[in-house]
């Protein structure tokens, strides 16, 4: 049995490793094609990890990615593709910022209340797609993409100065949030920066994700639905309720994915809030195989590529384009999709052969024994 566990680890690790190696090789090809040194940029980027201020940036960024990717992964586990994480995240962050700027409760109430606002907003937005799918059979992919666009317009409307918009300098914001809603971070000194307090929320969500999926009845139903809808239905899972619940939870998680930044640093929602987080999260969830540990590594890797690449522009003697990191991220997503499927099938076949071989061996032993007995 130990052997099989080793096998599973091998299968689990082979996919991402093959994908990463392939992505690095292909990036090097791009570098060679543009007449650059194909290896030096990696060294330059890795060097950045040594600086503590970059480390803080990476961790902070990764916490946003992580929460959003958990939201995506939750849908993936039951074959629901929530592309709307981006809209749910932006709307959730904006609504939280608005509420935070107008309501002032004591801190111990204000922060949970703000988290709830973000979660409910995200859940509501994703729930629209869920209800449409359950009642009218509308594909959640289409619905959530459209809801992303609608979220953009809605945010644009709500941040008009007639509504909740406040002009700060040249930037339209939602006004500075009340101090009681600010989440203190871990201050590592003037030069290094501050780790968001809600990084711990991200960690807690990761643990919660694992617990719910692997240790609860609900999680089992959800995974069963993802693995075989027909088997799940026969086992008594109500597909409709499952779709709606998964969509709501996915949206709720997505809705709070912007809050580490909002409550920890920005304290207002403005046009300069990071865009496209939800789309990045899809790639991260894929790379992390929807597994909370894997997603954490993937989120850190992504944040590293994001935060270490600007240094390439200022490298001496030869400067590189920081877009190399973007190319690499794109290639990783490609390679991941291909290598996972290949490894999955290879793993299944490998196990089938193993089981066949072991049973044959056992049978051979039995007959031998019998022969001896005779």
């Amino acid at each position, binding site marked *: *049995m130990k052997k*099989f*566990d080793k096998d*599973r680890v091998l299968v689990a690790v082979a996919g991402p490793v093959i994908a990463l190696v392939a992505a690095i090789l292909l990036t090097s090809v791009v570098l060679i094609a543009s007449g650059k040194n194909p290896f030096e940029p990696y060294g330059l980027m890795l060097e950045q990890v040594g600086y503590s201020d970059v480390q803080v940036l990476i961790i902070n960024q990764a916490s946003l990615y992580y929460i959003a990717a958990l939201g995506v992964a939750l849908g993936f586990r039951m074959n629901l593709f929530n592309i709307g994480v981006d809209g749910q995240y932006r709307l959730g962050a904006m609504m939280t910022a608005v509420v935070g700027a107008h309501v002032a409760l004591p801190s111990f109430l204000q922060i949970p209340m703000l988290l709830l606002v973000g979660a409910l907003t995200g859940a509501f937005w994703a729930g629209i797609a869920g209800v449409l*799918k*359950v009642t009218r*059979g509308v594909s959640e992919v289409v619905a959530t993409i459209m809801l992303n666009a609608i979220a953009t317009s809605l945010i644009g409307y709500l941040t008009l100065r007639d509504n909740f918009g406040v002009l700060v300098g040249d930037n339209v914001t939602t006004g500075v949030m009340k101090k009681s809603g600010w989440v203190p971070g871990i201050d590592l000194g003037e030069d290094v920066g501050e780790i968001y307090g809600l990084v711990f929320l991200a960690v807690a969500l990761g643990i919660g994700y694992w617990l719910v999926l*692997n*240790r*609860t*009845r*609900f*999680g*089992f*139903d959800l*995974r*069963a639905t993802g*693995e*075989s*809808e*027909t*088997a799940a*239905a*026969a*086992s*008594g*899972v*109500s*597909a*409709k309720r499952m*779709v709606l619940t998964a969509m709501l939870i996915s949206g709720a998680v997505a809705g709070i994915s912007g809050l580490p930044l909002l409550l920890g640093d920005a304290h207002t929602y403005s046009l300069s809030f990071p865009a496209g987080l939800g789309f990045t999260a899809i790639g991260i969830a894929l790379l992390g195989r929807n597994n909370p540990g894997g997603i954490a590594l993937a989120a850190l890797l992504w944040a590293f590529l994001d935060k270490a690449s600007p240094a390439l522009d200022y490298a001496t003697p030869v400067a590189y384009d920081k877009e190399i990191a973007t190319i690499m991220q794109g290639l990783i997503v490609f390679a991941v999709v291909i290598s996972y499927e290949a490894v999955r099938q290879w793993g*299944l076949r490998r*196990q*089938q052969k*193993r*089981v*066949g071989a*072991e*049973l044959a061996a056992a049978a051979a032993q039995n007959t031998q024994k019998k022969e001896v007995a005779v």
Partner: protein
Amino acid sequence: MKILYGMQKPDEGTIAVAGNQVSFSSPADAIARGIGMVHQHFMLADNLTVLENVVLGSEKLHGIGGGARKKIREISDRYGLGVRPDALVEDLGVADRQRVEILKVLFRGATTLILDEPTAVLVPQEVDALFANLRELKSEGLSVIFISHKLGEVLSVADEITVIRRGTTVGTAVPSETTPRQLAEMMVGSELPTPETAESTVTDKAVLQVEGLTVYASGGASVGWEEEPAGEGLTEFAGGGDAKRVLDDVTFTIHAGEVMGIAGVEGNGQTELIDALIGTKHAHSGAIHFLGEDITPWPTRKRRESGVGYIPEDRHRQGLLLEAPLWENRILGHVTEAPNAKGFWLNPKGAQADTRRIVEEYDVRTPGIDVTAASLSGGNQQKLIVGREMSHNPKFLIAAHPTRGVDVGAQAQIWDRIREARREGLAVLLISADLDELIGLSDTLRVIYNGRLVADADPATITPEELGSAMTGAASGHLEHGEAPQTAETTEEAAGPEDEAR
């Protein structure tokens, strides 16, 4: 069939079209050779017109405008299909859609047509019309391969019959010299060990009472209707009109300790009956009482928790999570029950321990409980499922083809388990294509034909041949002399749920 149409490659053997040996690597190759296929589930886009559906994918043949329209009219007139090129497919009935499918194939220049279970979705008059079309095609020099479970239809429409059982050809027959009974014999075969149930253990305690159960076909089958995600509800509103009744006023009672066998050619309503009993499809009328309680509105989970065991007919689609380890498969379907769960939480340790017990007791051949279900052989998968269902002490068991695709040794074991549980008062609904299994295991036998329970029989005296002919719809009522006939025919009782709870 898939090989003929180029969807799958043969491992061995050859195909010759008009004397030339050919090999297909895709359906396009098959079409180029003049082989066309009409699938059981139609491949039509509802929101396009007939013309658009027909030219889709073969725009180069006759263009997409007037030329194609003319060609469609021409084909339609020549074979008497009566297809209007500009009608919207969503406005067409099932039979019309089927004719569009046939026309689509002819449009591509097919000379050999493969029809896969074409009558499954049709009402009798439509079947007659289809057969008229087929004869028309035949007289124009086309070849038709007609695949069907329904013996009577095969006999009436075919010029030559080939019987396939378990992947091999078991014989050919000429319809004019063959009776349905002989054909049934060929289909069923009788080389299997006969299961025998010794003494009767039937009690008078009714476990399951079904009254006037009626289910309509989900009308207008089109692409992927079967895969519709939400099994319940979405496909439900098709009732009314002239929708086909896939289950028509079915009434029966199963007592504790009784195995009731349902014989019937596949596709006569067995699947729908199972779905209605387990709750993945809701009855349009009628009532199901389980231990005196009306469970008709209950969801699947509540039914299973209250003691309905289920050995599904398709274990890969309904019984297992193929890529999950065995112990997770042991949880499937019983996620709310001990030893799999403690309240809200799962109990992996309990489930794993119990999986080891099942593996031991039911002789599931596996190196461990952490391997995926997909890596076991079919027989061992089935033993795991039987073990799982029996572990929860069901009071009523739906056993659909419990030994299909299972080797002889495992088959005997599974039969033993069912008999054992029956002695302890289990009520079993046994649905099987294996007539020997049905006769040997059942205490009472019913025959399902066209969604109705048309006949009943005493398994102690009936022969597979007699049963086979009843399956074709040739005989009805009570099939054996002696005993007072049980009310298999319940037409006099009409529909309308009667409250008989006690």
